[in-house]
């Protein structure tokens, strides 16, 4: 047991214990004194005190009840929707469940306290939120104070909150016995106007009160409009949506139905109180007509309509409705927030006017401007400022209406240009698109490879479309799991459009949803859902690509040979899982597993070209990383690449694999050249081809060409790791250390774990004579690759004067090479650094025989300069088909 830890605990415990003896408001000062300048101790104690403050309910319940479903062997709760109702949550005894929704379950509960009885509605936020909900819980606790202070006749008071034993947030509020508006609408359909208007008015006053306190509800909907026993409105769940993170994504949100979301919420824009007014408008529409203005068969379709569709006018579904009421609702449902009523107060006034059947003109004036208003002095308006804005806004709106655009002023004064039409074509380069990782909505993690595979395929298909710039796979997948809005993604990747979608696979059937979103104005240009059989997956993918290309007005011309039916779904499945494992690539185990999966796919379909290609890649990777004997693994890589190409000569990845093998194993430079070029021509978006080709060119001292390839790779795959490190390597080989240092430093900023980049950085520093920096970099590289002393480090130490340590390291490595594999290339470097030319050449020749890693770069490795005069060097280089450098 770590004595250190025990001591640390003991000290913190002692101070914590003493602090608990004091009154709460004395504790902080005491801790300061007791810990004086021991920051660690202070932090420990403060953490414990914070935990003390939050852990009232923690473990204060029955362990057996918690574990009951685990003990029982029957169907587990939740799998069929049947819940386990807890008996207690915190200080509350649970009576029964009274409702459930997107965010969680609501119980009727009673406070279990003899001195203070209280009947409450207790809502528990559901689990299963991606990060375990901890982030949400923390925000919830921080916000509770503000929400608890909202006092209004039509706002349901938030009493209390806490965290259940499972770490889920819950809160309690006054129990409203009259049910919810959603219940009423479900039972009655539309409400008569005389009933709807008072409800609406009360709701509006509640919103006004909250907005005045700076609180935006964000989730106004009939389900949150409750009624007291006397029928008066109580708006509930204030701000909860915000606390829970408002994780609205285009492929399915956490918050349940999308129908009440405002356009700005749907597109991830900034949201203010006017989003509540929108939702209020939707609710009012529904109250009056019994229908929702924006509805659809799926979450994404509803979002699409919210953002771009015009709802059916109320007067069409509610004949005889007062024109001003119709107009009010339509104004509330303006896509642009500035065209909606400015505040809840205005809405209240408008409602009053309607109720009175009052002056139509005054209602219009009070509810805010409409585009059709011409410049007109508003008589009797008490607020001159508002009047002025109405006039100005009206005029501009009028002019803009002519131009086909709508200009508005944002609340902060900045103005933005927006359009309801598709974005005007800019004079620019080819339209660009990023296919974001499709979401796997089947619920089974086993389908993840399939979903990723589909995304891959789509990227590949679109990548072959002329005139379209498509972002490559690795950059897109670097963003997987992030909840960035379309615009942020567009900026990060430098594209104008994103494709998003979801895939659900169930047995042999397939449901794919996809949509194309313009980043610039956040509009959905195209969306569609496909219900197909699994065997049609490639046909679906082509349909999607075709439709998208059409929407982007780009000529889509694919040859027929692309349309491959899936011969064997099992094989496809294995292949995709193999790709998935290969992409994970965290070690030899993954590569072996990938290889086995590809072999299994081949077993089921012996003419499955992609599977051979995958297998080739797996072996090539093994060769690169030095797993197994390079001669063997590269031979297998080549063999499988050739098989793949025989079956499908257009497979760029197979050709790249072949080219790479020709380069590092056969040293057949011209052939490698040809194959690389052909692969790149076949699939210009296949980044890896350019990366491998770039390094290959560098090895042959064709530095500028190599760099050009890497630069192109970087443009089409801006987030791909490794490109920077390779650029650095080529620059080092070219004897351009300053540029190398810049490139490598940048690459290391993005990926500090790249040991190869550190090594190259060390080489660059050596070139510049910055010895200390060089040693540090080599040490870092060694550390990251899991050793303390590497041969590369020995080399660096040798050439910077510390021969003694260098010799020791090399001796140790050579000794250990009897029992385990030690890369000969780097040992050779170390000996070269020590000036032992013949020994260095011995090791180099061995490296050549083995086709060991890095041997292909022998000619551009600085360490071997001292060997260039030696005849053995000349012979080796000649054998490798390289030119002897002067």
């Amino acid at each position, binding site marked *: 047991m770590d004595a250190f830890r025990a001591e640390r605990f003991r000290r913190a415990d002692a101070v914590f214990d003493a602090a608990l003896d004091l009154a709460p408001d004395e504790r902080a000062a005491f801790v300061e004194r007791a810990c004086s300048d021991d920051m660690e101790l202070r932090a420990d104690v403060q953490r414990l005190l914070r*935990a003390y403050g939050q852990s009232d309910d923690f473990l204060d319940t029955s362990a057996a009840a918690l574990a009951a479903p685990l*003990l029982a062997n029957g169907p587990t709760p939740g799998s069929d929707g049947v819940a*386990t109702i807890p008996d207690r949550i915190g200080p509350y005894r649970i009576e029964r469940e009274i409702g459930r929704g997107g965010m969680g379950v609501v119980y009727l509960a009673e406070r279990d306290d003899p001195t203070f009885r209280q009947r409450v509605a207790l809502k528990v936020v559901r689990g299963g939120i991606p990060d375990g909900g901890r982030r949400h819980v923390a925000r919830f606790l921080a916000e509770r104070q503000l929400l608890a202070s909202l006092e209004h006749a039509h706002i349901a008071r938030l009493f209390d909150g806490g965290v259940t034993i499972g770490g889920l947030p819950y809160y309690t509020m006054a129990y409203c016995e009259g049910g919810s508006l959603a219940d009423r609408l479900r039972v009655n359909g539309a409400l008569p106007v005389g009933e709807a208007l008072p409800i609406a008015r009360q709701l509006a006053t509640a919103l006004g009160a909250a907005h005045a306190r700076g609180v935006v509800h964000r989730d106004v909907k009939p389900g949150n409009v409750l009624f007291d026993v006397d029928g008066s409105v109580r708006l509930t769940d204030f701000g909860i949506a915000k606390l829970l993170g408002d994780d609205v994504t285009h492929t399915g949100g956490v918050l349940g139905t999308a129908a009440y979301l405002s356009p700005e919420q749907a597109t991830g824009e900034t949201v203010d109180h006017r989003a509540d007014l929108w939702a209020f408008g939707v609710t009012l529409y529904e109250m009056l007509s019994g229908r929702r203005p924006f509805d659809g068969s799926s979450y994404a379709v509803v979002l699409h309509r919210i953002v771009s569709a015009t709802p059916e006018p109320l007067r069409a579904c509610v004949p005889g409705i007062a024109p001003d009421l119709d107009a009010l609702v339509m104004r509330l449902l303006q896509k642009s927030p500035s065209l909606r009523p400015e505040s809840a107060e205005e809405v209240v006034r408008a409602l009053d006017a309607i109720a009175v059947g009052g002056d139509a003109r005054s209602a219009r004036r009070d509810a805010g401007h409409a585009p059709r208003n011409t410049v007109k002095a508003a008589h009797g308006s008490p607020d001159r400022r508002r009047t002025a804005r109405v006039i100005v806004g009206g005029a501009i709106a009028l002019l803009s209406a002519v131009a086909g655009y709508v200009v508005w002023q944002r609340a902060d004064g900045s103005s933005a240009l927006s359009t309801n039409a598709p974005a005007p074509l800019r004079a620019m380069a080819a339209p660009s698109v990023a296919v974001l990782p499709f979401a796997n909505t089947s619920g089974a993690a086993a389908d993840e490879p399939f979903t990723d595979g589909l995304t891959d395929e789509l990227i590949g298909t679109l990548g072959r479309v002329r005139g379209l710039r498509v972002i490559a796979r690795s950059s897109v997948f670097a963003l997987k799991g992030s909840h960035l809005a379309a615009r942020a993604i567009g900026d990060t990747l430098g594209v104008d459009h994103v494709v998003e979608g979801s895939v659900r696979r169930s047995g042999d059937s397939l449901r794919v949803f996809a949509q194309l979103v313009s980043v610039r104005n956040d509009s959905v240009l195209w969306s569609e859902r496909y219900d197909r059989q699994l065997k049609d997956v490639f046909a679906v993918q082509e349909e999607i690509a075709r439709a998208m290309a059409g929407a982007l007005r780009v000529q889509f011309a694919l040859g027929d040979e692309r349309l491959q039916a899936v011969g064997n779904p099992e094989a496809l499945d294995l292949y995709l899982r193999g790709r998935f494992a290969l992409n994970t690539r965290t070690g030899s185990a993954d590569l072996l597993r990938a290889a086995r999966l590809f072999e299994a796919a081949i077993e089921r379909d012996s003419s499955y070209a992609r599977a051979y290609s995958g297998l080739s890649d797996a072996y090539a990777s093994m060769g690169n990383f030095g797993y197994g004997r390079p001669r063997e693994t590269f031979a297998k890589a080549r063999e499988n690449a050739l098989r793949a190409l025989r079956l499908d000569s257009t497979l760029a990845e197979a050709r790249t694999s072949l080219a790479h093998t020709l380069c590092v194993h056969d040293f057949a430079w011209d052939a490698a050249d040809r194959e690389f070029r052909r692969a790149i021509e076949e699939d210009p978006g296949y980044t890896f081809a350019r990366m491998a080709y770039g390094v290959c060119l560098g090895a042959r001292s064709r530095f500028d060409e190599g760099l050009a390839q890497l630069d192109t790779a970087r443009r089409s795959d801006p987030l791909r790791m490794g490109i920077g490190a390779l650029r650095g390597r080529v620059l080092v080989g070219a004897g351009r250390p300053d540029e190398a240092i810049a490139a490598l430093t940048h690459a290391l900023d993005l990926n500090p774990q790249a040991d190869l980049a550190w090594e190259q950085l060390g080489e660059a520093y050596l070139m510049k004579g910055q010895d200390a920096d060089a040693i540090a970099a080599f040490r870092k590289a060694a550390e990251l690759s899991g050793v303390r002393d590497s041969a590369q480090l020995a080399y660096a130490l040798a050439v910077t004067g510390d021969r003694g340590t260098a010799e020791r390291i090399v001796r140790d490595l050579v000794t250990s090479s009897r029992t385990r594999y030690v890369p000969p290339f780097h040992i050779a470097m170390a000996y070269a650094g020590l000036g032992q030319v013949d020994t260095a050449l011995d090791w180099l020749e061995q490296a050549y025989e083995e086709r060991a890693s890095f041997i292909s770069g022998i000619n551009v490795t600085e360490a071997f300069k001292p060997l260039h005069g030696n005849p053995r060097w000349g012979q080796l280089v000649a054998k490798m088909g390289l030119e002897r450098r002067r």
Partner: protein
Amino acid sequence: MATPSRPPDPSDNAFADGVPPEPFALVYDELLRVAHRHLAREAEGHSLSTTALVHEAYLRLRDRGTSGFNDRIHFFAMAARAMRRILVDHARRHHAAKRGSNARRVPLESIERLGDGALDVEERAELLVALDEALVRLAELDSRQAQVVELRFFGGLTEEETAEALGIGLRTAKRDWAKARSWLYQTLYPDMVG
């Protein structure tokens, strides 16, 4: 047969003074039986009370004349340990079965129809396993605090019974309970506490 004169220390897996595990096995089995009996009665076990289970197990074992225990309190202490093993064993079995699957994603259509209120089975299993592991670590740092947690949470003992079982004052028992829960809470939910 000899019986231990103190409650089992949470940090030892075998009984140090050579007591055969038979009493423990008896308690373990009986608790499990009682638990299943209760579960059969009310299918969802939402009112399963640890204290009630332990008491019932005690009565049944006492009535069968199986006395390997000095007294009630001593039994309860052993039951607490047994209960902990039972629950954590089940949790680990469930957790192991589920390992490899990611967080469940909710299919689009059933978003309205979300399952359980508080925690689903996976979450319960995870929590118990995490709690058990944290408790083991706590036992290394302060064995008495860990014992208090075991007795109170897994054994369902009251504060008084806990104090008696450990031979400490009531105030100390309360304090230990508060401190232990704080430490466990910050260990299991570090993000909450900062």
